[in-house]
Every structure is written in C-alpha cells, then in structure tokens.
C-alpha cells in the first residue's frame, strides 16, 4: 500500500474507515465484497475510486454514504462513529451530511427540477418557501438557473445529472459521493460534469468522492484510490492534471461549518 498523505496539521478526517469488511450472504455462499479497508478522507479532497467491476467500489460507496453498514470495522464520519447506527439514524445522517449522486441520476419522474432538488430539504423539515429558495440557488450553482421548472424528460442527460448534483448539494453536506456519475454520459458531457465537480471542490471546498472506470475522469482528482477484490491496491495523491483549475495548488474551503483550510498538494 502507498504511504498515507502527510496531513500533520491535526485535522479531523471527514471519513475515517478502519478495517472495514462487508460480507453478503447469498444462500450458502458468502461474498466478501470488502476485506479490510482503511481509508481517511480529509475536508476539501477530491478522490477518485477506481477498480475493476465487482471489486467492491459500490459497496464501499454505500457504506461511506451511510446507505449500508459494514459487517465489521469502524467508520467515523466527521469524528463520529456511524458504523453501528439504526436505520432512522442513518437516514438523518444521509440527510444532513451526505449528498449522493448516482450513475442513473435517480430523479423523480414527472417532477420539476426544483421539486427534485427540494427533496432532501423536505426530510430536513424545512418550510416550503425557504426550501424553494435553497433549491433554486443550488440549481443556479450547477448552471440550471433557467431550467427550474423543467421535468426530467425535458432535460438532457447532462442536465439531469446537474439536477442530481444540485440535489446532493442543497443540504450543504460534508461530502458529495458519486458512484460512476459520468457512466451514462457521453465524453463531452462527462467533461462538463467533471468540471462542475472540480469547481465545487476548488471554489467551495466541498469534499468529493467518486467512483469511475475512466482514467481520464480520474485526471480531475488529486487523489486516486484503486481497489481490487475488496482491498485497497494503491492510494496515490498527486496534482490534478485536467480541468479548469489544474494548475492551482491551493484549495480554499468555504463550506459553512468547515474550517478554512489551506493544503499543500504534492506530486
């Protein structure tokens, strides 16, 4: 395994996984999807998780996203152990701390963009007017200020994924998790989406973890974690080599509750 990044300034990781395993019981067969994952992700990082199909990427993302719990090991999110929480507690964490972006967008059909983006706020108990305003702001942030009342079937794939990203952003989560967000998009649109992620990461300091098959997509990240057979094969931190801010060496977190952070990037 590659050495861990030198984060010596005592920051609390957003994500701290220790010896995480996940075993699926398929009848008599046990599928070991994760076999002992150790991973720390710090605020403001943008990480690509890569690996062959079936290596456990989605399983890992689901655990990080609190959609699932590990079979063993501990998971601290913002310094709080969430690996043994109950359904409803996990739901609350997903609502407040995590924004999830899916490969197939998962927008509610026949529902306007703004209503889709409002969804997490409904479950956060926010009132209608404030909700609408926040959702509109999020849509503007992803460049869809002129598509507020469009329904998914009136939007292109890239636009639908932007709506999904706005939905992930709207609750000001600690991180955005994206499982193959460009898997259903063409190259040009993929680039747009990756640039959007990168902008959100670099301008707003939002922590982003995403899964991708595509090495070119991984170019937008400053850290690439490779998984094989449920284990981390490599963990490489480097300068992002693609995208609008590829040359920048500093990222400033402006994400409300996070401390402002300046970080050295290494090659």
């Amino acid at each position, binding site marked *: 395994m590659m050495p861990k990044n030198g984060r010596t300034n005592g920051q609390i990781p957003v994500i701290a996984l220790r010896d995480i395993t996940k075993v699926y019981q398929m009848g008599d067969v046990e599928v070991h999807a994760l076999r002992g994952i150790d991973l720390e992700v710090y605020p403001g990082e943008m990480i690509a998780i890569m690996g062959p199909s079936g290596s456990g990427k989605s399983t890992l993302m*689901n655990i990080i*996203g609190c*959609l*699932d719990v590990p079979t063993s090991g501990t998971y601290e999110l913002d310094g709080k152990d969430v690996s043994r929480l109950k*359904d*409803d507690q996990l*739901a*609350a964490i*997903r*609502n*407040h701390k995590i924004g*999830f972006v*899916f490969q197939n967008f*998962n927008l*509610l059909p*026949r*529902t306007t963009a703004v209503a889709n983006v409002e*969804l*997490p706020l*409904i*479950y*956060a*108990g926010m009132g209608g007017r404030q909700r609408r305003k926040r959702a509109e702001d999020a849509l503007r942030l992803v460049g869809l200020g002129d598509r507020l009342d469009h329904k998914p079937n009136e939007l292109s794939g890239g636009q639908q994924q932007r709506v999904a990203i706005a*939905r992930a952003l709207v*609750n000001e989560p600690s991180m955005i998790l994206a499982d193959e967000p460009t898997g259903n998009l063409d190259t040009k649109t993929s680039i747009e989406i990756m640039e959007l992620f990168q902008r959100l990461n670099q301008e707003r300091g939002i922590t982003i973890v995403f899964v991708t098959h595509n090495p070119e997509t991984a170019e937008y990240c400053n850290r690439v974690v490779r998984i094989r057979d449920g284990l981390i094969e490599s963990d490489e931190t480097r300068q992002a080599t693609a995208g609008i801010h590829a040359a920048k060496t500093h990222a400033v977190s402006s994400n409300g509750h996070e401390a402002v952070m300046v970080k050295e990037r290494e090659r």
Partner: protein
Amino acid sequence: MKVLEALRIAMRALAANKLRSVLTMLGIIIGVGAVIALMSIGRGVEKYVTDQFAGLGSNLLFIAPGQITEGPPSLRANPVRSLTLGDMLAIADRSRVPHVAAVAADFQTRVQVSRAGKTVTVQANATTPEYPLVRNWNTTIGSYFSTLDSDERQRVVVLGSETYQQLFPNNEYPIDQTVQINGMNFRVIGVMESKGGGPGGNLDRSVFLPLTTGQDRLFKQKTPNGEYRVTVIYASIDDSANIPAAQEAITELMRERRGIKYLDQDDFTIISQNDLISVFGDILGALTIFLGAIAAISLLVGGIGIMNIMLVSVTERTREIGLRKAVGAKRGDVLIQFLIEAMTLAAIGGMIGVALGWGLAQIVSTFFGEFQAVVGADAVVTSLVVATAVGLFFGIFPAFRASRLNPIDALRYE
C-alpha cells in the same frame, strides 16, 4: 415530515395516475354512494310515514277484525268475524272503557262516483258522524254530515279533496250539487281538507257518507242478524298516558262481546298509533341493518382494492422510495406518505360517493311527489370517516412494506 407535505405528495401521486386512482376508488364510491342514497331514502320514508301517522289524529286506537299476524283477509283459513256498530257503541260506554274521548266507525268499500259524464272509482267511507272529530280532520267547504243526517239515512256525501277536483275540474262550488254513487243520487254537502296518502290508502281519493245510508241503501252489507257491519273502529283516548289502560279495557270488552274463551286468541286487533310507528321502526331498523351489511361488504371490497393498488404502487415506486430514503426519509416518513395516500384515495372516493348518493336520493325524490329524501349530515360524516378509516386500515400493510425497503435494493430495483 409534516402531514401536509405528505398530503401534497399523495395528491401528486394520485393525480399522476388519475384513471387508476378513480378505478381504485370505485369500490368506496359505490359503497358510500349506495349507503348515502339508501339511508337518505330510508330517512325520507321514515319522515314521510311519521308525518302521515301524526296526521291520523292524536292518541288514536284502531280496532279491526282478525289478527294481523294471520295475514291479509284473503289468505285466512277462517272467515273473519266482522265488527259492528254495536261494538262501537259499547266502546263508547265510559263505564266500560274509561278515558275514551270519542269513537267512530268506518265501513270501507270501493264505489264508482260520477258527475257530468265523469266517473271515478274511489274508496267510500261510510262512517258515523263523529268521524271528523275522532280523526282530527275538518272540511274546507261545507260541513260533515250531522247525527240527524245519519239518523235519517240522508243521501248526502262529503268528497275527498282529490275526488272533488276530479269531479269538479273547474272548481265549481260543490255544495248541493248532485253526484251519483253506484248510480244513486247523492247531494254534496262538503269537501274534506287534503290529507295526503297514509296507511289505508289515500283518503283524498275517497268519499264520505253516513254509515246508515251506506248500509241500508247502497251496499246492503249488514251482518246476517241485521247489524251494521264496519271495517274499522277508531277510538280517541283522552291522554296518551291512558292508552295502554284503554287498550286493555277495550280488549276485555271485545272478548266478552265476542264470546272468546279464556286462553283463546283474540279475533280482532287493536293497534295504537305508536304500534304502527314502531312496526315501521322495526322495518326501517331491519333495512338499516341490511344497508349496514351492504356498506360493510362494499367498503371491505373497496378497501381490498385500495390495498391491492397500494401494493402495486409501492412496487412500481420502489426506486422513488429508495431515493427518498437515500436523501433522508425515515421509515416513519415513508409510512406516513403511503398511509396518507391510501387515506386520501379513500376519502376522495368517499366524497365522490356522498355526492353520487346525494344525487341519487334527489333523483328518487323528484319521482315521488310528496316524498323527500333526507340526506343527514351525520350519515355524510360517518361514511366519510368510515371510508377514510378503511383507507387507513388497508393502507397499513402496503405502507409498512414501503417503509421497510432497503434503500440500496430499492434504488437498484428495475
């Protein structure tokens, strides 16, 4: 999540599938509609009947030959022994029947009445002169015949209001005009107030003449030993509190007069207004139970329909549920969402049903002149509450299922 929010989501989900929503509601619509319509009509009938009885005269006892339990006269094994004018006179004797205020006897038969080429077939009531007093019923034109008319067997007649209109279509002044009853000339001396239909037929379509005239001159239906045969005797009692006592005294007297032995059954019937009302009450009670059963069955069927569609809906919307959970919906949020959806479905169905039932009741009302269906607020509220409760009950299982879905599996669902 607020209930209001769940309601909005439910309305949107139902609106997205309008036809299916309506079809799902159909069971509830029909159930509630039938109950509202039939209850309203039942209430209307009850009110109508009660009104009719109230018009019969207060504290009235009816004495009729035969046992009501033996069925109509034509079906009875033994011929019924008639009542006579003598029975009426005996009942009028206050030393035998205390509390009796007035009595009247009435012999009823059908007759043909004609005037100026018009002929109508109506009921003739050959009565004693006290009839209007006992029945608490007056004339609008002229007067009822007197004791003298009766004693002299005068050929005088008082017309029911409808019969008057039929025979005098131009509202001619009827007094002292001549009509023929079964071919015999009678002088019109009065017209009764309109009373409407009631138990025993529509008295507005009848004529009234002295019992003596009728039995001696017209019908010749005296008993073999020459007594005036009567169909019914009316006795009005001074106070409703005394009705049971009077009823008992009359029973005693009649048994004695008719020589009925100890333990043998009465061969006559005494009915009070209250008896009649309670008989109708029993009928309406049975009807209500019957309606309740219909309602229960149709609501059950409607409820199963709702459960079925909600299960389909939960399956269809598995991904939606998964997504909602992924962005923070708790089990309770999903549970409430689907429960409210089922309840909304049922409640809207209930409202449509109420409207439908109300419409049906109105249509029935327009077909029957005097009868008016009564749509009770209690019936409306009850059926809406019950319909919604049905939605709640049958929504529990699908909603529970939805709430337990695992978000990962749900999102992966195709």
